């Protein structure tokens, strides 16, 4: 830990802390605005999608594993947090998050055991197909998930006697957990393990020659990504106090995938920026125009064609040019 921090100079560190504090306190300082709570709710959903996108980027950006089924673990986390709270009659946030992480990582382990043996496009299709299977189960298991009617009666998230149920408190909670996830992902990426994942993407054969068990490496990344997606799902369940089959649906996976690519894969902030852009196009723009989906598709095409490094990558290039 100290090694990492030594490299970070004090001023940027202060800036990071300031940005984090600004984010967490958003509902407070935006309160005088008209529609501040609506903005808060959109920002909250952006952070939840950003967590999902960050989990996906561990696979896409780091290990070169394009999963199109990340909603399976997101949804599993949402249902797990909701069901654990209700069945055990507990409002404990740690219990909900724990259940979400447990269930989503176990699911990722089971599916990953099959899926990580495939690569590239095959991996993409397999993850999509397995996610559809999970969707089918969620839809069909009415007694457990509520089926198509959705799961209502998600209990309030409470931690050490603090009630995170109000919209502002909930936002603080989501923002803090988002920052924790961001920190964890950053730590993973700068660790030996993270570099091994990048090696996997760059040249898997060479990694095997170097003595890495690449299948196990991939599987561990898959499970890790599943667990993080599960955390995102749990936050989604708490945000809405409701879980619907849409949360396991293919549309969520596509949203996350598009976020990663527009924002920029294999950069820490890329998926976050992407999630913000995608939800802006999908949720805010339809109030003003009817062809938001077309806009999203076109933006996505442009980025895949011309700016594969994403918004963050573009910004980095622009910054480098400005300094030169």
């Amino acid at each position, binding site marked *: 830990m100290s090694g990492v921090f030594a490299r970070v100079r004090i001023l940027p560190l202060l800036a990071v802390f300031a940005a984090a504090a600004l984010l967490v306190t958003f509902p407070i300082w935006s309160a005088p605005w008209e529609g501040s709570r609506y903005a808060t709710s*959109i920002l909250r959903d952006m952070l939840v999608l950003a967590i999902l996108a960050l989990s996906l980027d561990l696979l896409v950006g780091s290990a070169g594993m394009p999963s199109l089924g990340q909603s399976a673990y997101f949804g599993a986390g949402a249902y797990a947090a909701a069901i654990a709270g209700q069945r055990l009659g507990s409002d404990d946030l740690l219990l909900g998050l724990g259940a979400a992480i447990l269930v989503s990582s176990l699911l990722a382990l089971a599916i990953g055991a099959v899926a990580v043996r495939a690569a590239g496009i095959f991996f993409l299709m397999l993850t999509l197909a397995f996610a559809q299977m999970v969707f089918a189960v969620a839809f069909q298991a009415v007694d457990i998930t509520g089926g198509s009617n959705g799961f209502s009666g998600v209990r309030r998230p409470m931690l050490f006697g603090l009630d995170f149920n109000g919209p502002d408190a909930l936002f603080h909670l989501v923002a803090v957990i988002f920052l924790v996830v961001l920190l964890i992902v950053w730590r993973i990426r700068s660790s030996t393990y993270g570099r091994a994942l990048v090696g996997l993407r760059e040249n898997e054969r060479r990694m095997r020659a170097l003595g890495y068990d690449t299948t196990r490496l991939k599987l561990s990344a898959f499970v890790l990504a599943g667990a993080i997606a599960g955390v995102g799902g749990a936050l*989604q369940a708490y945000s809405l106090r409701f879980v*619907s089959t849409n949360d396991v649906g293919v549309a969520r996976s596509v949203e996350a995938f598009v976020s990663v690519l527009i924002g920029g894969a294999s950069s820490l902030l890329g998926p976050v920026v992407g999630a913000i852009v995608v939800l802006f196009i999908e949720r805010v723009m339809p*109030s003003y125009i*009817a062809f938001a989906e077309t806009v999203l598709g076109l933006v996505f095409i442009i980025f895949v064609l011309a700016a594969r490094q994403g918004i963050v990558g573009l910004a980095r290039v622009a910054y480098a040019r400005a300094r030169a």
Partner: protein
Amino acid sequence: MDENNGAERRYRLTRRQFLAASSAAAAIAACGPAATPNPSGAATVEPTASPGPALKIGQLLPFTKVYAELGNSMKRATDLYLKQKGNKLANRPVTVVYEDEANDPVVGAQKTQKFIDSDRVDLMMGIVATPIAYAVRNAIDAAKLIFIETNAGGNALTRTTTNCTPSCKSKYIFRTSFSSYQISYPIGEYFATQKGVKEVFTFVADYGFGNESAADFTSGFTKGGGKITGGLKAPLGSADFLPYVTQIKAQNTKDIYSFFSGTDAINYIKAWTQLGMPAAGYKMNGAGFLTEQDVLKEVKEQANGATTSLFWAVTLDNAENKAFVDAYQKEYSLLPDVFAVQAWDGMQAVDLALQAVKGDTSNKDAFIAALESVKFKSPRGDFEFDKETHNPIQDMYIREVKVQSGQAVNTIVGKVARVTDPGK
């Protein structure tokens, strides 16, 4: 939650609110020529002697995804109603903000938040899909926002349930559509007692609504002395219905009760005729959506003979319905469907309640009391809310599809008067 305590600054016209109002116009333009040939119901405020403060209605409807046309239909009815009233209800100029719920509870919840906090609407209407209504129920209740549900028919929305799961009634929520009990139980009882049907086989869409419909039909039918001989379920969005109809044909009960709507209903009816079910003596019956206008205009005479129950039919013979169908046809050059009626009655209920409180929506309890006591002649017949649940008390019509002068229409063959949901 305390999202809605900004009444004092509600009528301050901010840039944000102006944007919201113009967004309504944009949404109208956006729906395209097919959807809205006449963009009339926009936020045009006519200058009159002394209009009251603007009344803002948030309409949460699907404009994309599979239920988009239901949303368009409900929007047409809303716009038409306002046009007829010169865009004023109880002397208050009306602004409608339309938002797309995209058939996703997360989106629906977010737009509800927008209505509450950003648009600061006086009341909210709409929502087609039951899960979305269930998902936003608590937020609406907590915000004390008056909400007129104009489609979703899940039973729990107007009932008292244990732990409010999957949903429960709220004093702020009214429904001008129906509960699945209302379109399923009475026809079950009617079949057993009036039509003399002894046995029925059920075949429904395997999701919340289809299962509720099957259960309510079954209890009505068996209470009347009928017997359910078996059942089959198809997942929502089943592409191929031939396997199911083949299976139905392989059993001997001739009367089939079904709940399907939209694409599923079309595919089912086509498979039904393809396999020659009518000639083999089988009879198609169901909740009214099976043969509603959206389906009927596609399958036409293939639905001939199907018996369904609903609280309205385009052929219903009363003065209000004639006026409504004529006006709708004149405005849009197409026949209205039941979704339009639901939205229309939502507007009527709001209009009458507003008149009763002289346009004052600031006293919520008074407005709720006014809504609870509205009684009016709807295109569907007599309409009033059950004060206990806020679900409508309405007549259920038994309708049979007949081909009249080359057109397939639902004709009324029976009636179960004043059906109330048993919810408390």
